[in-house]
């Protein structure tokens, strides 16, 4: 179950690596025409086949990354790997684009050689790769001539011998709120929340010497139940995903999150919480469309969170018909702007205190000859972030750091709540 070859293309092939000799490389010429044909028919699909050959592709900005196979390959592995390629190339070249590929083709080849062998993904950790595959090869000849033992170690994500003067860990707990609000059928009113969840992420910036052993303590309800502790607020995590470094079987057996962290920045874990959350910013909207004459929009935004907290950089994006013209706005706070290329009114409020309510009115003209093109019903979307607060109430209770040299290290914690996929359907 593996990949035969990987291509990077942008209308033409920029670079390719054939991992197995049994697929005709010229097959890739069928990819672009087929893709365009599917696009025209409105039936794009991440898998395209041509005869016995299957193309699995992803798109990154205007670049296509295509894997080609003629076997029953593990499709999820292929897509994971293609996204990993994007990640590695981006870390190497800042931007993954036509130019950076062409300017660095030697390194790209080296990387493709190291990342996958005969269709089997190998070392894909860019930090470790950077220890022996570098862009300025000549200068680092000595360093490059050795395989870091890390590559084949059980701890394949952290090298030995890391040193910091001051040992610190920065922990960011970031919660994103996804909300999907429906509409009341028939009336131009605002419905109730149909689905909502919280996707949390705990990110680390580790600046620790040596090979430290870390243990993270959260107010996890299952853990509290296991240990018989029952004070304080706890959180039920529906599903948890961990970075490679976390010992999964340990977590499975006693909910301990123990690990040797990668150096620098990484996402330690993510979690999903299914509880019904009150939308932190509640939107009520009335959009009235008078055919051939005008559209009137009234949007009320209410901060449904604690008075002491403040939501920053709030953006309420309201869809308008594509043929609308001559916008007029009135806002009780913030600033409204028409973005014609996206058919949106964007209402921005820099600072939105909890408990407050604001209003925005917009007025658009409509042409007398109606646009007969059918338009979708895009939802109102909201963006915001609220610092020093997690909506789920999750807390880092402790971060224990033990290293054999015995140094003291300080963990720093920061909480933030932000909008995720925050969609409110409209009737117009």
């Amino acid at each position, binding site marked *: *179950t*593996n990949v035969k070859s990987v291509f990077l293309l942008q209308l033409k092939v*920029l670079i390719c690596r054939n991992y*197995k*000799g049994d697929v005709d490389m010229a097959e890739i010429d069928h990819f672009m025409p087929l893709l365009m044909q599917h696009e025209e028919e*409105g039936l*794009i*699909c*991440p*898998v395209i*086949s041509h005869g*016995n050959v*299957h193309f699995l592709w992803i798109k990154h900005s205007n670049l296509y990354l295509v894997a080609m196979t*003629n076997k*029953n390959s*593990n*499709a*999820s*592995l292929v*897509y*994971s790997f293609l*996204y990993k390629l994007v990640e590695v190339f981006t870390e190497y070249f800042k931007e993954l684009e036509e130019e950076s590929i062409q300017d660095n*083709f*030697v390194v790209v*080849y*080296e990387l493709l*050689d190291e990342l996958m062998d005969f*269709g*089997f*993904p*190998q*070392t*894909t950790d860019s930090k470790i790769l950077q220890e022996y595959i570098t862009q300025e*090869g000549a200068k680092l000849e000595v360093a*490059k*001539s*050795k*395989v870091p033992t890390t590559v*084949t170690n*059980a701890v394949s994500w952290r090298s030995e011998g890391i040193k910091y003067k001051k040992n610190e860990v920065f922990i960011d707990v970031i919660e994103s709120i996804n909300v999907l609000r*429906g509409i009341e*059928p028939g009336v131009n009113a605002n419905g109730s929340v*149909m*689905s909502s969840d919280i996707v949390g992420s705990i990110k680390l910036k580790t600046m620790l010497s040596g090979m430290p052993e870390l243990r993270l303590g959260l107010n996890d309800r299952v853990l509290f139940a296991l240990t018989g502790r029952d004070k304080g607020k706890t959180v039920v995590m529906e*599903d948890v*995903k*961990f*970075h490679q470094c976390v010992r999964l*079987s340990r977590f*499975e057996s006693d909910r301990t999150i123990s690990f040797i962290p990668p150096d620098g920045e990484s*996402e330690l874990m*993510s979690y*999903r919480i299914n509880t019904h959350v009150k939308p932190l910013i509640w939107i009520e909207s009335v959009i009235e469309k008078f055919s051939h004459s005008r559209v009137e929009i009234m949007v009320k935004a209410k901060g449904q969170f604690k008075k002491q907290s403040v939501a920053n950089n709030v953006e309420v994006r309201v869809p308008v018909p594509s043929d609308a013209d001559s916008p007029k706005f009135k806002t009780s706070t913030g600033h409204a702007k028409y973005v014609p290329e996206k058919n949106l009114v964007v209402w921005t409020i820099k600072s939105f205190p909890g408990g407050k309510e604001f209003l925005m009115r917009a007025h658009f003209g409509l042409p007398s000859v109606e646009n007969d093109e*059918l*338009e*979708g*019903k*895009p939802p109102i979307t909201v963006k915001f972030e609220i610092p020093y607060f997690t909506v789920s109430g999750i807390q880092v209770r402790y971060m224990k750091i033990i290293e054999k040299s015995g140094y003291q290290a300080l963990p720093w914690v920061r909480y933030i709540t932000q909008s995720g*996929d925050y969609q409110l*359907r409209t009737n117009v």
Partner: protein
Amino acid sequence: NSEIFELKAELNSDKKEKKKEAVKKVIASMTVGKDVSALFPDVVNCMQTDNLELKKLVYLYLMNYAKSQPDMAIMAVNTFVKDCEDPNPLIRALAVRTMGCIRVDKITEYLCEPLRKCLKDEDPYVRKTAAVCVAKLHDINAQLVEDQGFLDTLKDLISDSNPMVVANAVAALSEIAESHPNSNLLDLNPQTINKLLTALNECTEWGQIFILDCLANYTPRDDRESQSICERVTPRLSHANSAVVLSAVKVLMKFMEMLPKDLDYYGTLLKKLAPPLVTLLSAEPELQYVALRNINLIVQRRPEILKHEMKVFFVKYNDPIYVKLEKLDIMIRLASQANIAQVLAELKEYATEVDVDFVRKAVRAIGRCAIKVEQSAERCVSTLLDLIQTKVNYVVQEAIVVIKDIFRKYPNKYESVIATLCENLDSLDEPEARAAMIWIVGEYAERIDNADELLESFLEGFHDESTQVQLQLLTGIVKLFLKKPTETQELVQQVLSLATQDSDNPDLRDRGYIYWRLLSTDPVAAKEVVLAEKPLISEETDLIEPTLLEELICHIGTLASVYHKPPSAFVEGSRGVQHKRLPGTAGVSEAPPAVIPSQGDLLGDLLNLDLTPPTTTGPPPPTSGMQMGAMDLLGGGLDSLVMLCDPQMAAGFGAPPAVMPTSFNAPVSGGLDDLFDLGGGVGMPMGSYSPPKTVWLPAMKAKGLEISGTFARRSGVIQMEMTLTNKAMSVMTDFAIQFNRNSFGLAPAGPLQVLTPLSPNQSIEVSLPLNTVGPVMKMEPLNNLQLAFFIYLFFFGFGLYKFNCPNMASY
């Protein structure tokens, strides 16, 4: 070419830097597709260098051009062999990795010794690279790998102390095993499984996937072993990489089959599977797509896992279309009385979107909900009527198609909406919608005052219609005639003559003849047949056939699970490969079914079908109905068979008679008798021994009908003994069998007697007496017997399957 000339000079420069720059330029030219193969000797000359970067570039060049310059490639061998002994492990690994990629026989020979050393190298980086190299070499020259004993070395690496080496060895072995399904390379036993499970905790995410995919091929000895593996695999569900999660799900879904349902652990495991599956929907869209295609399989196999998770499948405005369509499909599968109100509200919302394919599917989904959840039918119908009022053309057409199905599920309940449907008759331009509308008009002709006018309006352009519309129109008008004979005689004459005389389409013509004969000989019988009560359509349509579903569950995460097709359907050279099956719950592993090599697809079989010549030749085209009446309905063997092959026709007839040509006029042959006697000759008591039944026709090949059988001689009569098992979800009726010409003139002595319908999951033993007076045709091999088997399934319609009975050889 001056550019090549310049490069040549630079490549041969004395200055290291200049050389390196020149090789870079060569590679750059190669990358943009220029042919730089002419520089082969000059580039190879740069191979001996201490500069790793330069070496890598030269290797890259070699991989690209060695195949086109095999003779010159040999020049590189020395350096390769030397590099495989370099003190720097990075160079050793690079050399062995590159050598394996050069698919030139001569080079391959020289690879063996270095590879042997590298497989035992002290550095795990070299060993893990060498492990993969064995698979590469096997791909070029399998015999060589076996002769050199590399497979055993590779197997030993499964016990290596380094997890990455174990993972690559597993990957290489799995790859080799895949191309050699019978090699028994991966003879997984509890010890190796234990080693794999240990390595699972320590290797990279990709290594974990190789190991999990390999584990999925193992069949535990009993439920206890199954549970202990599951326990060690479940922590992988918390891995951040979606592919690790899906491979773990595959192992769990498979091994779960062996756990008793009343076991506490079984329930625990079910609960553990839902959250990670839901989380996959937050991955990148392509991974979401793979996840959704797999969830679609999982909810069919184990609906209980996700039954409470409807909301996560609600479609978001910015989902890509392929994600939207898949979510919709899963929503319908999860729809139940408990959540139907929400689902319907969503579907109605989707039906007013702008993406045509999505909207169509949403409308269809509403119809499927009506059929699936009886309590919601009324609401669904009224939602569909609302949608029809929008007058959006494709919405109206989809709605009419599904309303037809709703009528078939709930007869005499919603016919009041027919008037509304009829108003939209003119706007229908898609064949499926037109056919559906005509079916409705014909079926309910007695309640539609102007049914004759409506149907007549279609007749004008009869020949421009598609076949399905023509067939429906023919049937519809015959129904109308049987219900309102007085006013519609002219109309029925018209359509019968259009169908039988002016059409080239054999299906249409034959259906026309049948109606004509029926109407002219026995109108009462015609009424009974054409207006017979139809079986209700079942709740779930478009479920994947269970045997295929089992196979696909074994392929979770792979392309097969994305296509919903077995690998044999799209991978070249995998036709003889065994289909994967889920283990049984009994705790013993079931032997995989004997796979009968298929002789081509069903269509091919139909066309190839070697029909016995009918006793009379086909009737000449009649000129009047009176003449028709004199014809023997069964006279034209071919015609009647074609009739049977038509599902819609069969539906119209209720249960069609199974036609069995029984008179064969071929010379008697003693060939088979001789063979049978042979059994007696070696001391078998006559009639008491028959070899065990083997599977002749796997259920996957025949819409769920499995046939296994054997031959026996009882009281001097050759018997074909068969077990028919219905593994489909609907009732099977009307079985008939036909023997194709064979070496012994073997033919049935009487018709196949299967009197009762075969319910789902039911098996039936059938014994068919045979004689040897059928037509003879020498078969290759001699004892090959080819049978054609007919069944009628509600839902799938008529099936005709051809297969071989290989075990005649045992006589």
